[in-house]
């Protein structure tokens, strides 16, 4: 079987279209993130999370009413595909949320028994520490990746272009997550960081090919070399993204509720990462080198 072999699509020629498209999407993602504030999970804000399963699917509006009348304010109630399962998040820092929820429900929802599947309580000091660690992980990983790529390709522009593509992927993915109102917790951050590694991985394969073609086809203009390199690596790019997507979809559909946010983040990110390594990363290098 062969597909996407011996093709020559003019990817570079379409760069103005894809750039305008990407700029619009990146800007909208930033706007969404600022207007539709990220829903930080209690990992970062502190608070309580109660994951519970009822005997029969509960009425969310009724649950909300019970919580409000019992002094449990600002509870976020999340439903799942399994309608008996509900996740309650309260972003307030006190230790007794679980007891209060239990009492309120056993008093006012007597005919529907429930079981606590998972319960988390995170104080503000711990939330602050986790937030700090997540930010540090991001910053250190970013710089380490830039330095590595710049060193391997003996020039800052390769590293910078790869990181611009990476930022592009992370910003858009984050924007879409916020647009969907997904809760950003530790696993989601882990997924975003994995994505950073993945996005660069894709980009480097194309860069490696450009570097090689610069040696073997040194007479050709840069425009042609970059286009040729993207085309030559296209089948690999698509296959690897495809196999990774296959497993991520399996994880998303069958991996259980706890990992939903994590797998959704990867799902979105891999699609965008694949797009950017074809349409953004290499054309950026061309733009820069062509100017000089």
């Amino acid at each position, binding site marked *: 079987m062969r597909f996407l072999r011996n093709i020559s699509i003019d990817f570079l020629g379409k760069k103005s279209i894809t750039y305008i498209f990407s700029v619009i999407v990146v800007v909208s993602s930033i706007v969404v993130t600022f207007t539709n504030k990220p829903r930080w999970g209690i990992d970062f804000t502190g608070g309580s999370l109660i994951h519970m399963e009822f005997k029969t699917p509960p009425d969310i509006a009724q649950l909300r009413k019970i919580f409000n009348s019992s002094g449990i304010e600002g509870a976020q109630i999340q439903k799942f595909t399994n309608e008996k399962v509900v996740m309650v998040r309260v972003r307030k820092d006190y230790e007794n949320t679980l007891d209060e929820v239990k009492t309120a429900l056993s008093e006012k929802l007597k005919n529907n028994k429930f079981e606590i599947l998972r319960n988390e309580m995170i104080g503000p000091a711990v939330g602050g520490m986790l937030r700090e660690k997540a930010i540090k992980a991001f910053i250190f990983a970013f710089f380490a990746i830039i330095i590595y790529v710049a060193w391997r390709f003996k020039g800052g522009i390769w590293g910078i272009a790869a990181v611009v593509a990476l930022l592009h992927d992370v910003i858009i993915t984050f924007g879409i997550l916020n647009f969907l109102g997904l809760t950003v917790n530790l696993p989601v951050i882990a997924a975003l960081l994995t994505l950073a590694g993945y996005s660069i991985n894709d980009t480097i394969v194309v860069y490696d090919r450009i570097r090689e073609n610069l040696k073997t086809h040194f007479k050709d203009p840069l425009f042609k070399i970059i286009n040729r390199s993207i085309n030559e690596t296209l089948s690999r790019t698509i296959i690897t993204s495809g196999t990774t997507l296959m497993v991520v979809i*399996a994880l998303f559909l069958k991996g259980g509720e706890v990992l939903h946010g994590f797998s959704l983040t990867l799902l979105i990110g891999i699609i965008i990462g694949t797009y950017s390594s074809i349409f953004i990363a290499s054309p950026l290098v061309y733009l820069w080198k062509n100017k000089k």
Partner: protein
Amino acid sequence: MNKATQWKITITLVVVALSLWFLYPSFQWYTKSAEEKQKLQQIEDPVIEKILKLGLDLQGGMRLRLEVELDKIPEDMEANEAMNRALEIIRNRVDQFGVSEPLIAKQGLNWIIVQLPGVSDAGRALDLIGKTALLEFKLVSDQTIGEDEEAPEGYEILQGRESGKKYLVKKEAELTGAALDNAEVKVGGNFNRPRISFTMKNDSAEKFKNITELNVNRRLAIVLDDIVQSAPNIKERIPNGQGIIEGNFTMETAKDLAIVLRAGALPAPVKIIEKRVVGPKLGRDSINSGIKAMTIGLIFILLFMIAYYKKSGIIAVVALLLNIIILFGAMAYFHFTLTLPGIAGIILIIGMAVDANVLIFDRIMEEIEKGKTPRVAIDAGYKKATTTILDANITTLIAAMFLFQFGTGPVKGFAVTLFIGILASMFTAIIVAKTIFDMITSERQIKELSI
């Protein structure tokens, strides 16, 4: 077959054999019944040290982060000493509570991490660990005071365990829980209820004798964490240092109180600043859905690789399966814990690991298209793809490394599987798959490569 190939075969066989060897105890363990496991745990069988452990999110259990309130430690105690003492006492309490393989560790300046696998009765465990359990014996004043009056110099007002009841007691304790030698649950009293009977150490018993002798017909309050449990009248001097604490106990709360009294009081109150409890049902569900997702993902990938790369695809499939075995083997050997995000990492690796093979196979195809023979094309393809594979994977390794450095708990588990999985995928693609190709092409001349 040349020397290099023989070497590669040897290395491959050794790595795979070691992985299987490291995995064997886990395989044995997880196929045992619950009773057998319990038996082995009781005799602390060495096999427990060798198995791949499941995180709290998979087996159920409780993880706590406690803050020791260092501003409330006794004046003559240093912060470091107080932390070590708190750690020791919590360890004692947990040991007596009977949890298998707990983890209790100091973190930073004033934090303590407690992990209790399999514990789902969070309330009870919290009471047991979080209670300061400072037991004090304080003399009750003969004076009575009005509602809003302040306590006189040297005295303080304490709440009783019955709501609304107040006691005026001497501020300075006559004796503290440190005097206790033993404490146990006895059923007795007027209502045949559980209560705690204690015995004091010899020197304290002597002191207790003197105190009771001097204060016959006065009341002595038994105070636990600033709540007066009871305040019996001293009828006569008590020579043997024995006494009873009465309270509104159930058998279980009495048992737990006896534990904390035996283990001793914490040097300062602790505050629970993080608590994560996963029930056993969710843990089981997570494992099941993880295995399901992994199986489906794996089958997808295997079918795709064979359909697309034909016989060469089978080589990639062998490499992938070995990759998974090596990943689990390494996890067991390094005593890493498998968490739910860790399972997600493995699933992700199944999809990403074939990348190295895809890179190589695509290169080989290109070389064949240029008109090279399979033998030459394989060597050239490998040569060209190897640097790309290294370059591309190192960035993922960097991301995984920082995730491990800054991640906590389950997320660390993800970083670990990602890191080991990528390393293993490079090994299986560059060494193992190449060895298989070499073995096939060295035995006979192959005119056409199935790729």
